[in-house]
């Protein structure tokens, strides 16, 4: 029981990070029908921004502010940097291609991904940086969930990610701008005709998706320790898989997909072998697409004939 519980918590932690990333993929696809392959790099820049804030404020061993203030400041730095990267990306790489054939922005996204990786390599070099979170919050500090002691950082990741997902769901469903986002996602042209500023809605979508990716980057740094210039590629791929499994274009689907992928990785390692982790995850993707091509919570597109 203890073993299963621990692996479940491991899976939830990993899945929370994937879910935050997957939401960005889904939101952008829902609005623009664009797979933003550069989203993983936004997450990477967020991780470095959080690290930079950590270094600026004294480092993990001797921070000059209390930890309860330091971590939110790290999140804030990551959010701001990720938003700047994401919104700039939209403005200069995707908006000019909005009325082009769908392949054009897709290629542009791939190009932006490589551009951002190379920029990060130039700025930060390819060496690893470490958040050294055990120096910030002792590894023995945690809460007991049944027979399992869970490190406080993992609890923080799960709680923050869950809170953000709930807030996002409420915002999308209850707020005026959220309604506009849903309208544009449903039918861009009709929304425009109804007086919705589509450009503004797109920017807001990228803003929120990027902010969540930035938060995910800091979480990854806190839990998994090291960050590096190429960390966005694998994470982005897994998050994209999560978004597709959950239903690309569906925000609840992205959340569910992220958690499912995280749990699948954890349980595969625990009960089969770590060698088959990626095999199982991508097999899951294929099976879901074969059985339900729109994803678990995705809705089929209605096409008027």
């Amino acid at each position, binding site marked *: 029981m203890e*073993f299963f519980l*621990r*692996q479940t918590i*491991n*899976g939830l*932690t*990993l899945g929370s990070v994937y879910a935050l990333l997957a939401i960005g993929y889904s939101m952008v696809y829902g609005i623009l029908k664009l797979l933003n392959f550069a989203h993983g790099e936004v997450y990477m*820049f967020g991780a*470095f*921004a*959080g*690290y*930079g*804030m950590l*270094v*600026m404020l004294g480092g993990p061993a001797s921070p000059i502010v209390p930890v309860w203030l330091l971590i939110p400041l790290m999140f*804030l*730095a990551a959010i*701001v*940097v990720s938003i*700047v990267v994401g919104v700039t990306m939209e403005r200069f790489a995707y908006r000019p291609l909005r009325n082009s054939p769908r392949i054009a922005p897709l290629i542009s996204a791939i190009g932006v991904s490589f551009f951002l990786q190379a920029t990060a390599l130039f*700025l*930060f*070099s*390819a*060496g*690893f*940086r*470490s958040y050294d979170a*055990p120096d910030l919050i002792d*590894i023995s500090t945690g809460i007991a969930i049944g027979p399992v*002691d869970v*490190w406080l950082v993992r609890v923080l990741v799960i709680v923050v990610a869950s809170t953000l997902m709930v807030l996002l769901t409420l915002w999308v469903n209850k707020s005026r701008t959220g309604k506009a986002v849903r309208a544009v996602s449903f039918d861009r042209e009709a929304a425009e005709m109804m007086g919705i500023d589509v450009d503004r809605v797109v920017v807001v979508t990228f803003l929120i998706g990027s902010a969540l990716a930035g938060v995910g980057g800091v979480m*990854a740094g806190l*839990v*998994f*320790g*090291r960050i*590096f210039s*190429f*960390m966005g*590629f*694998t*994470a982005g791929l897994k998050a994209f898989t999560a978004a597709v499994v959950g239903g690309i274009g569906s925000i609840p689907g992205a959340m569910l997909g992220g958690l499912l992928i995280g749990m699948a*990785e*954890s*349980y*595969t*390692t*625990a009960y089969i*072998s*770590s*060698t088959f*982790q*990626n095999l199982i995850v991508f097999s899951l993707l294929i099976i879901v697409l074969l059985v339900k091509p729109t994803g678990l919570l995705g809705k089929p597109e209605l096409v008027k004939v």
Partner: protein
Amino acid sequence: MIRNRKPGLRVAVMIAVLALVAAACSPSDGTDTTEAAGDPTTTAGAAATTTEAPGTTVPAATTTEAPMAVCDGTIGSIIPITGPVAFIGEVQRNWSQYAVDVYNEEHGTAYEFVEGDNMFDVAQSSVLAAQIIDDGSIMALVGPAGSDQVDAAGAAFEQGDPTLTYISPSSTRVGITAKYAGLFRTVPTDDDQGPTSADFMIESGATKVFIIDDQSSYSTGLADIAAAALEAGGVEVTRESVAQDVTDFSALVGTIADDTDWVYLPWQVAANGQLLGNQLVEQGKEIPIFGSDGMDSGDFTIAGSVIAAFAPDISSVEESADLLEGFLAEYPETNTFGPPVFVAVTVIAEAYSRVCQSDGEITRAAVLAEVQATDQSSSILGQPIAFSADGDLIGGTFFFFEIQEDGTKVQLP
């Protein structure tokens, strides 16, 4: 006057920019804290197996009977100055330059060292190899560092110019020197590392060892050798495998039994080992890690862990004290990847000098023959330097270091 309606946004952006600048300016991990840096409290233990030649009394590693010829030439390199193992490449570069400077000063030569950064990347190694083949001024080079990179460059050299000499200061894969005519190395092989590491664990009383490879050829090869030796010694071995880009090992750590005696990590990326070690502690598993030479880095500082290294703590080698002191006066830090490079560059410089003295013109074929004929009675490593017919270092062995609470390393007897 136009009011600034979003002062908060500007402040937030400024803070974020500062954060990115701070991240860019911070050093990447890998600052080595080994006690080899001249600390008198270092335990100057003997090597795991005896390697010192009997009656070795030559005081300095470079003062062999090299001719005092005024010669010039270029020594190239393919080393990972940037990339995931930059902590290796930076030290290798510094020791290479230092070796050239020391040799030039002692012998009145004018050799030049040229950097070649392969970022620990296989494809980049091939590109650099091709450039070096075309560079007529380079008669020999040091590197590449990793065995996969050696394979890539070696294939290029075999096709482009099989007379080009290249000495790897850190590739330990068994049999690789037999594949390439111009390849030598100044470190022992995994044929030695695997069994000696296994012997260490067996002698520590281990009955259960968990081995995780990182799916690189270096790692799987070493894991296979160590596993076979452990099983032959009656130890229960569990094998697992993870990719180098895995971000979370917590699920895998959960599968390691609490009564495991050692977790053996023949990994190339020490930062991954640090993460796994942290997650072992997080899950309350007090199991020490035994790392291969790839884990010998400032990125890995889990107290109580043991690391294999292919060079000794040279602060314990009397003949090398002055050299080490001179190096640390110029460069900020060192680690066990440094001294084998010094040996490699010195071997090349001496080969150049012998050729220069006898023929006057340094050619690649002549340098290759001279390197093969190397016979130094002592070196900075505290052992003589000579190569087998395949190009392997004769008499090399591995040494073990224990990581202390403060992150420093102490050589074990």
